[in-house]
């Protein structure tokens, strides 16, 4: 195994990690921000909500959350892809049994 081989394998792992492992949590945070209305600091330094979020922002937030739920379902199916292939013959993502 040469350095080039290692590098070839590391880069995709890092990229996938950044997209799914950092991107999705960031997207989730974006959803929460859209769901949050105006906030203010109290005298003792806590951040509290003073007015609720706008309707449009809420709608976008729910779309984001739905997308994330979908990704989690994909994640579960991904874990189970070999099992599904083995028990039903259906090759999910075309990648089972590698």
């Amino acid at each position, binding site marked *: *195994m040469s350095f080039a081989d*290692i590098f070839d*394998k*590391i880069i*995709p*792992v*890092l990229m*996938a*990690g*950044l*997209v*799914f*492992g*950092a991107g*999705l*949590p*960031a997207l*989730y*945070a*974006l959803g*929460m*921000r859209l*769901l*949050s209305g105006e*906030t203010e600091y109290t005298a003792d330094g*806590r*951040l*509290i*909500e003073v007015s609720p979020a706008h309707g449009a922002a809420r709608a976008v937030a729910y779309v984001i959350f739905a997308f994330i739920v979908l990704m*989690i379902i994909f*994640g*579960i199916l*991904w*874990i*189970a892809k*070999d*099992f599904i292939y*083995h*028990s039903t013959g259906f090759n999910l993502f075309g*990648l089972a*049994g*590698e």
Partner: protein
Amino acid sequence: MTTELIILIIVVLTALAFDFTNGFHDTANAMATSIATKALKPRTAVALSAVLNLVGAFLSVEVAKTVGTGIVNLDAADGSSGLMLIVFTGLVGAILWNVLTWLLGLPSSSSHALFGGLIGATMASLGTSGVLWSGVLSKVVVPALFAPIIAGIVATVGTWLVYRISQPVSDSKKTSGFRYGQVATASLVSLAHGTNDAQKTMGVVFLALVAANEIDPAADIPFWVRLTCALAIALGTYLGGWRIIRTLGKGLVEIDSPQGMAAEGSSAAIILTSSHFGMALSTTHTATGSILGSGIGRKGAEVRWGVMGRMVIAWLITLPASGAVGAVTWFIGHYINQVTGSEWLGELIVFLILISFCTWMFLHSRKEPIDPSNVNDDWHGEPAQGSAQTAAASSSNSVASQKAKV
């Protein structure tokens, strides 16, 4: 009962014991952050993780029917009894290392312990030619070097983004929202863990059955093997390696729920995708790197590099240490059999050695027990110690500190 059957039973029991230690050693990887941020109650967290490990274990179908393929070459073993002794002492090395690192509260990779034990026993029996060193390098050493680095980078970026984006969200919404995210990502890690790790033990049990001529090598994994392996890893997970949970959840970094979600999200993504790219990364190394990254990515968060240093040392010596135990117990078993002319006395003695060391370490752990009641106490210094010495004082302290945080 024939000698072969007695040895087979001992080997299968030892394999299940390894599976059990694998479970309680790795509960922390998925659940330490959720327990530390109180997204889940400690008992609820380990119960959830146990159920998901159980389900995950049944999802594993592509069970490797050989053990340590590409790392050790067991074909050259001296008949079925020779093979059994190598696998058995390899498992003993792995279990003893797992229990010792648990006692010290250090997360270390159970796969590394298993490989190390097998490598040690193989070298003792077949010499260095029985070990495929290029496989050891590419399948064990290189992934171990990169897993914490990749996970650390991903979690650092994730944590930084999450804090930046969610900055104007009110404190109460932040806490509750990120708790949901944390539980979801931790659950994915648990499920993937069951699928990946239970099948290792299934492979070991299958190999032992083949070696004892109890099953056809081409047969499917019997249902009882699947069931017992799934139950062993789930039971281990449920009992929870509280000492390791404490180190990962409280010792390495002080974790808040946004960090917890970023860390588990990073772990889940890397564990699920890495094997697809031909570089399966260890759950333990990935989870630890992610938690570390969640500390680096948050401004002002305290990262205890001393704790990290101890973990890295544990990782470095996992392979040689479990290998040494595997080799020593192989010599003990082999020479007792040779000197006495017995076919099972050696195995029995090694089994007794395993039980006595585990009992000793368990009794030692009771001196400073870590359990759901003190797993989240404030961190003072060393892993697996904390405020346990002053149990009475700390329980009132922890209540006070929890109130302060709320």
